[in-house]
């Protein structure tokens, strides 16, 4: 899996309440959720995000509520990949389950700057900063998770018998 896009950078502890505020949880339509994505943290996100862009963030990205609306909103807004120093665990599994690519890489999260052009090859565990030429290494997903992602998420994995 390869992803290329420009970085949109955030700090530590970006919580699911700012990713998609609860006042919008009266719907689960991805495009409606995307239209309010990051609203309480960054009002400019929705207008500047472009298809394929990559979010980079600090520690504990996606902490707080279990709302799957958060990764759904991010994915529907066009973000192809989230690189963070660490993820809150429910967000982590939600992202895998719905097929939003995520990767933990503290070095990349620190070094990549807002607007940098980034290319990530998750199969081989390499992230490249095309703006600076720097390269960062990540660990590939465990086989079990890889299988879920390759099958297109948890629902598809169960539907085709890959997870029983």
């Amino acid at each position, binding site marked *: 899996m390869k992803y290329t896009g420009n970085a949109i950078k955030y700090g530590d502890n970006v919580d699911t309440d700012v990713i998609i505020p609860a*006042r919008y949880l009266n719907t689960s339509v991805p495009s409606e959720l995307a239209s309010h994505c990051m609203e309480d943290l960054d009002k400019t996100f929705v207008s500047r995000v472009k298809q394929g862009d990559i979010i980079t963030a600090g520690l504990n990205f996606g902490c707080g509520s279990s709302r799957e609306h958060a990764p759904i909103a991010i994915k529907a807004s066009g973000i192809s990949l989230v690189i963070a120093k660490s993820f809150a665990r429910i967000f982590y599994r939600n992202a895998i389950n719905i097929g939003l690519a995520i990767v933990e890489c503290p070095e990349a999260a620190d070094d990549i700057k807002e607007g940098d052009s980034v290319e990530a090859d998750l199969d081989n565990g390499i992230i490249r900063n095309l703006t600076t030429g720097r390269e960062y290494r990540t660990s590939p997903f465990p086989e079990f998770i890889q299988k879920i992602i390759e099958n297109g998420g948890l629902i598809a994995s169960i539907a085709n018998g890959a997870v029983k």
Partner: protein
Amino acid sequence: MGMTMTQKILAAHAGLSTVKAGDLILASLDLVLGNDITSPVAIKEFAKLGKDSVFDKEKITMIMDHFVPNKDIKAAEQCKTCRSFCSDMDITHFYDVGDMGIEHALIPEKGLVTAGDVVIGADSHTCTYGALGAFSTGVGSTDMACGMAIGKAWFKVPSAIRIELTGTLRPYVSGKDVILHIIGKIGVDGALYRSMEFGGKGLSSLSMADRFTIANMAIEAGAKNGIFETDYKTLLYLNQHGSKSHKIYEADYDAEYDKKLYINLSEIEPTVAFPHLPENAKTFNEIEDIKIDQVVIGSCTNGRIEDLQAAAEILKGRHVAKGVRVIIIPATQQVYLDAMEQGLLKIFIESGAVVSTPTCGPCLGGYMGILADGERAVTTTNRNFVGRMGHTGSEVYLASPATAAASALTGRITSPWEVMK
């Protein structure tokens, strides 16, 4: 190498004799939970599986608690989706207006979880049932959908932090102060991906209400689950609430922990978490005069009868400060009824507070107490993120029911020790 409580429960539910931290397993589930916000997404995902029945209609519960009684048309539509799914699937434990309560207070009250269970819930505070010696953890809607379909979920086996309790809490100090103190010490990612396992000589002094509050907020330290050793109080609670037969899992003597924390309950003081993270815990020697506009006493964290009793003891015969709006929300219909029979509702209303039907409402900025720009609230809820309870310019201070009640009386953030001298 020995296993922790959590590891033993997970091993047993995965049909394995041992597991170790980092193993990926598929575990069978004793209960799958969802609410009116997360279930509609799960129902949509479930439909993609093409199944016409759930794995076990007795082991699924859907509770309408976040935006009910419905706050708007969209919320009403979401509840309608849940209601119709539960009717089609003949789900036994569907709770709607009239018999609903805030899920994490209602489920133990109804005896739906017991010691040794594995529970997933599409709500982050599902970790609450660790107070009963169960492994329970928050997941998303897709996990809920798959749990409803096959009765299983994947887990990465967590390592653990052991929290060794000694001593006894002082008057007007409760489980909320303990967990805010702990999160203040280790931070909002201090237990990320791990279990928080509570035990030790001080455990027996903690009420079940205190334990529910502590386990409830394990997620605010990033934990996968919080779990308590079981003792006579756990068994008494399970017995009184008609829970099914239980199994007690104890950690091995040689279980390995990433870290051990020693908490002397006798040293815990009334504690308040300042905006905008639960880790910003302060005690009153560090707190200056902070004027407030609103107080909320309720939620899955602190809406139990013991919480209302603690607030009533402080509010009794006194009046809330001018300009402070005080909203009290019993967590379940049973708590509401008990509060009525014990005369607590009269105390609240005479003190100038309002009492609401059970709902998560204001905790997540849904309705029933939204804050305007620049307003401050002292609340017994669990999160104080930017905009959590309303405008992004508002501020939420997390505290115990006793501290919230004391603050209601003075109109500023106040220690219960100050008003109950």
